[in-house]
């Protein structure tokens, strides 16, 4: 397979093709990922999440520019939702990143969620590995516009940036569980539209009260920014670097990587076992099995247990 070799030599088109093969779950997808795996593990994975329209893409554009200026190679994965009804998607994050899209050290790829919940696509994690193997120093994942509990990003990213805006609700919203718990760095963006100070103070208070029960030495900074006016960008870049440094010095990175690898194994196991058993379901019991359940002669549990007994035990 020449494609993987070409990609490892730095061929962008080959990289792009490999990503497609992985995303499409093509037959040689696992073979490709296995070949690339030894080359992974050296990049900082940065997750950028927050509600739709909070300015994630514009902020990323600035982040990328600053990273490139520092001499880093940067990859961006921008995730937008696929339609549950048609499978189609409109991927529009790139529009905000045109400024950096022609730099030879930058590679940006848009992905639809293709039926996965949680804010990033199932395939995102694998494509991150591909970009790692390509030698990107910094890989930025932009989640879909996240709701309150789209926290899947924490399982892949080393550094999570939560982007919020002023006027997104009162102090009770800040107290809620979910996305407000996952930030390593918080950005109150669109500070130019006003009242950012209130939001900044509320988040700071939340972090201060939380840090008492966590032994971590990292206290999440809260940055007031305006991606439009290019304010707060330098501070954000500094904090991203500082967090990366903290992870390495404290040894946290090893724990994160260990958890990530475990997740990869568990995810792959879940998917393969479940696909395997699903393929046996109909051949073993026929389509009538669902009728049996409908007639209450069987239950979903008895059917699955029979399947497991027969094929896995």
């Amino acid at each position: 397979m020449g494609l993987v070799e070409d990609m490892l030599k730095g061929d962008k088109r080959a990289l792009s093709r490999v990503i497609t093969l992985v995303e499409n779950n093509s037959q040689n997808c696992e073979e490709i990922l296995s070949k690339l795996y030894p080359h992974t593990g050296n990049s900082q994975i940065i997750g950028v999440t927050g509600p739709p329209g909070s300015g994630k893409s514009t902020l990323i554009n600035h982040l990328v520019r600053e990273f490139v200026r520092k001499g880093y190679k940067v990859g961006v994965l921008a995730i937008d939702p696929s339609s549950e009804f048609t499978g189609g998607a409109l991927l529009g994050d790139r529009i905000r990143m045109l400024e950096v899209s022609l730099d030879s050290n930058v590679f940006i790829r848009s992905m639809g969620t293709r039926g996965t919940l949680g804010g990033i696509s199932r395939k995102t994690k694998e494509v991150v590995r591909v970009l790692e193997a390509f030698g990107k120093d910094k890989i930025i994942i932009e989640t879909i516009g996240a709701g309150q509990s789209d926290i899947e990003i924490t399982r892949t990213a080393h550094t999570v940036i939560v982007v919020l805006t002023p006027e997104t609700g009162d102090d009770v919203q800040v107290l809620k569980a979910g996305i407000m718990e996952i930030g390593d760095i918080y950005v109150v963006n669109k500070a130019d539209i006003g009242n950012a100070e209130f939001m900044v103070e509320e988040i700071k208070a939340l972090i201060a009260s939380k840090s008492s029960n966590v032994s971590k030495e990292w206290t999440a900074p809260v940055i007031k920014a305006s991606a439009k006016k290019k304010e707060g960008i330098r501070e954000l870049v500094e904090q991203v670097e500082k967090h990366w440094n903290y992870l390495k010095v404290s040894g946290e990175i090893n724990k994160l990587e260990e958890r990530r690898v475990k997740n990869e194994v568990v995810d792959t196991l879940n998917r393969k076992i479940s696909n395997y058993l699903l393929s046996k379901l109909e051949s073993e019991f026929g389509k009538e099995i669902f009728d049996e359940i409908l007639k209450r002669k069987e239950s979903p549990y008895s059917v699955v247990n029979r399947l497991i007994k027969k094929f896995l035990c």
Partner: protein
Amino acid sequence: MMAEKIRVLLAKPGLDGHDRGIKVVARALRDSGMEVIYLGIRNTPEQIVETAIQEDVDVIGLSILSGSHMYHFPRILQLLKERKAEDIVVIGGGIIPQEDKEKLEKMGVKAIFGPGTSTQEIIKKIKELIGNKKN
């Protein structure tokens, strides 16, 4: 389980800012199950080709209403060739006179849609061009 999708890059090259039409097309392609990478207005040919390569699209769709089609289409075809990416299908739409349309098609633009084209026609043509291997 294979899950291929037709990926289409839609963009407006040049200074023409009339984006109503391209947005209607973007929406229609999305609803037909394709993945549309929407690049908006005022793109350079270099941006368009670089994006097409990074996104590994099957089709580039250009909307030009400003009369600059005889520059932008050939330039994009040429850049694709330089990048060894001539396999990416280029189509377009806008205000394009018949004689220019013929010239462009000879150069390698695979379809040009004029005013009044139904979105169904565009979808059908794309599926025809890309083949039935996908969706």
